[in-house]
């Protein structure tokens, strides 16, 4: 099958790394894959992953369109970062394909796009949410209130432009089902870590240490609950003396200043590594005694961080919310949203008191990941979705036709959303 695969390829993108493995697996299975890199032009000079196939910059439109028209299917990697996915948005509306949805919450992606597409973005907000309060968006995005953003994920905007959607958890799946015109498949995010590099580093963990190392990695932002972790360590003198907390990943100067200030206030041992290359990050992960995968609010459809951490066999804490709640209770430690700091404190106390049997957990975690997050199964699910898309083409053609009429005739959105109107075309529900 000739596949055109839209993805960021810069090393700072987690999705880029994931695409590297996925594209490789597709090629191994005999498919002809061409990668269209989708990050902003400003990122074109940054280090990229080395894909084992041809890749083309998204802004070479003539060449890209030629590849598109000569392909069998388009696959778009979509996450909530305009900087990494601008190129995908340039083609998605005109050339529909399968969307691999990494985040349910796509407001940041939308915000970036809206700055250059103000009129259309307002129409989209109005169409999906009919919220007169936000008529001035995005010229004054500060008025895009928090309560609004929690309710309005913009998932609908992206999914409505798809032929089919593959997502990684059933959390918020209804938003996808309501907006995607084609089939939707849920497939667990695959495990992608290079096992060789883990084996080389795993022995580091056996070295006697004066303190236990707790790690948070990825882009360090507010929703990774770093401040709660610092507070939990800081309120207990045993933890202060026995825990060293590491932050690895890009961090803005504001957040860095905030967490340093808090760490100083509690007098805890905090190490901010900033962005690390793959090798250094793996080393750090292997050195860690526990990993914090806390998130709130939960914005992703699934977390690669959790899967990686599970494969490392480390004790892990996750927020008891969203798709994290779906993880087995005997494998991860779930932290309640309402009792967050105390729950983190209890977990860390168990850790330093060696009440957690790390070896048993390690084996169980690895078994779980290998069984549930196989890349091979994931690719099978992608092709299941492609089959379903092909089967639904005639329905999709009809829906597209009606869509075109609605657009050309300027049928009022209020009328389309009228339940009576929808019931007239309910034949398409199947």
């Amino acid at each position, binding site marked *: 099958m000739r596949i055109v695969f839209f993805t960021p390829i810069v090393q700072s993108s987690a999705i880029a790394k994931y695409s590297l493995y996925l594209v490789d697996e597709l090629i191994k299975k005999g498919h002809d894959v061409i990668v269209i890199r989708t990050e902003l032009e400003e990122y074109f000079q940054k280090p990229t992953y080395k894909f084992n196939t041809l890749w083309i910059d998204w802004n070479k439109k003539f060449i890209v369109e030629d590849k598109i028209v000569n392909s069998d299917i388009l696959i778009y990697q979509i996450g909530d970062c305009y900087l990494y996915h601008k190129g995908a948005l340039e083609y998605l509306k005109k050339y529909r394909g399968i969307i691999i949805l990494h985040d349910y919450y796509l407001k940041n992606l939308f915000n970036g796009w809206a700055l250059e597409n103000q009129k259309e973005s307002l129409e989209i907000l109005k169409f999906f949410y009919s919220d007169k309060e936000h008529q001035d968006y995005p010229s004054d995005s500060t008025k895009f209130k928090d309560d609004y953003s929690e309710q309005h994920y913009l998932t609908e905007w992206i999914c409505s432009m798809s032929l089919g959607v593959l997502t990684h958890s059933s959390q918020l799946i209804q938003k996808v089902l309501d907006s995607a015109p084609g089939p939707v498949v849920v497939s667990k995010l695959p495990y992608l870590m290079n096992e060789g590099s883990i084996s080389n580093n795993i022995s580091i963990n056996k070295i006697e240490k004066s303190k236990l190392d707790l790690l948070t990695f990825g882009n360090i932002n507010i929703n990774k609950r770093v401040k709660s972790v610092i507070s939990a360590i800081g309120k207990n003198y045993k933890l202060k003396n026995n825990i060293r907390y590491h932050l690895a990943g890009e961090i803005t100067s504001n957040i860095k200043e905030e967490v340093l200030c808090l760490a100083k206030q509690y007098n805890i041992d905090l190490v901010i590594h900033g962005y690390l290359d793959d090798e250094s990050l793996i080393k750090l992960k292997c050195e860690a005694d526990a990993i914090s995968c806390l998130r709130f609010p939960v914005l992703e459809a699934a977390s690669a961080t959790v899967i990686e951490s599970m494969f490392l066999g480390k004790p892990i804490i996750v927020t008891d919310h969203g798709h994290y709640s779906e993880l087995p209770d005997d494998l991860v430690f779930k932290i309640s949203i309402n009792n967050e700091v105390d729950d983190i404190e209890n977990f860390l106390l168990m850790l330093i008191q060696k009440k957690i049997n790390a070896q048993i957990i390690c084996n169980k975690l690895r078994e779980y990941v290998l069984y549930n997050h196989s890349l091979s199964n994931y690719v099978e699910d992608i092709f299941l979705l492609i089959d379903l898309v092909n089967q639904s083409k005639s329905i999709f053609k009809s829906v597209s*036709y009606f869509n075109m009429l609605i657009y050309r005739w300027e049928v009022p959105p209020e009328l389309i959303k009228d339940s009576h109107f929808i019931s*007239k075309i309910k034949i398409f529900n199947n």
Partner: protein
Amino acid sequence: MKVLVINNMAPFVWGGAEELAENLKQNLIIHGHEAEILRIPFKYEPANDIISQMMMVRAFELTNVDHVIALKFPVYLIRHPKKTIWLLHQYRQAYDLFDVGLSNIPNSDNGLKLKKSIKNADNEAFIESRAIYTNSKVTQDRLFKYNNIKSTVLLPPVNNPEIFTGGIMDDYIFAGGRINGMKRQCLLLEALSKTKKRVKMIIAGPPDSDADRNTLILLLEKLNLKDRVKLDLRFLPRQEYANYLNKSLASIYIPLDEDSLGYVMMESATAGKALLTTSDSGGLLHLVKHKETGLISEPNAESIAEILDVIWEDKKKALLYGEQAREYWNSLNITWNNVIKVLVK
């Protein structure tokens, strides 16, 4: 050539448009074509349902058809590479009737958007048609005024003209056609109650609804006109209808702003009957010439009563106007032969 005539369908409602489609089909066959009628259900209430019905029509795919002749909104939205529109009427509630407050589309933000969508769809259908003919000057003018689309008037011929022979006049004025609010039979009864003479009338035709039937019957009783008015409220066999018309003293038809010349009037002219109507009856006024082919009154009971009295009292005048109506109609040379040639050329 395989010609498909496409018309709307409101189940168990039969009127001029249905007759026209049927006769068009028959005459296409007479002229050597294969012809069928496709009737597509349409109901205009509630207004919000109109768009989905338009979409349904637009989604139809016709095969094994060489030529399509579409007659009305929304069936003229149907797609075909060789489509001729013989426009009987658009959805007037989105156009002229909206302007005068006689529309089921609300005069609101959403209503205006709905109206615009109907206009956009109409324009799309008109532009893609190979030719557009209208059934009257009124329809033609409206199409140009609201959609800026040029068309050619193609008047529909009378169906079975041979049965409208005229004959010895009896003592009644005939009011034929569908019974509904727009045709204003109630106003006729009110006018009769105000005549100075004991003018008699036969009102015959199918009511659109039970409400239309009951309203008329109740008003007849209320105005105490039973001894002067015969109500024959049903779909009449063609010959029976012609008999009523042929024996009448004159024919009256007072629809509100009718698009076409009106079958009732065309058949009355064929039968050589004096034509009576009101000044707001639209396309009919191209056929009813005051004191030439008939009489035109103001659209109120008093004025209508006056012309009823005039024609009742002066039978010679009725004869004269009737004869002139027949001559004028014949001079227009509106025949199926001409119509078929134009439509399938």
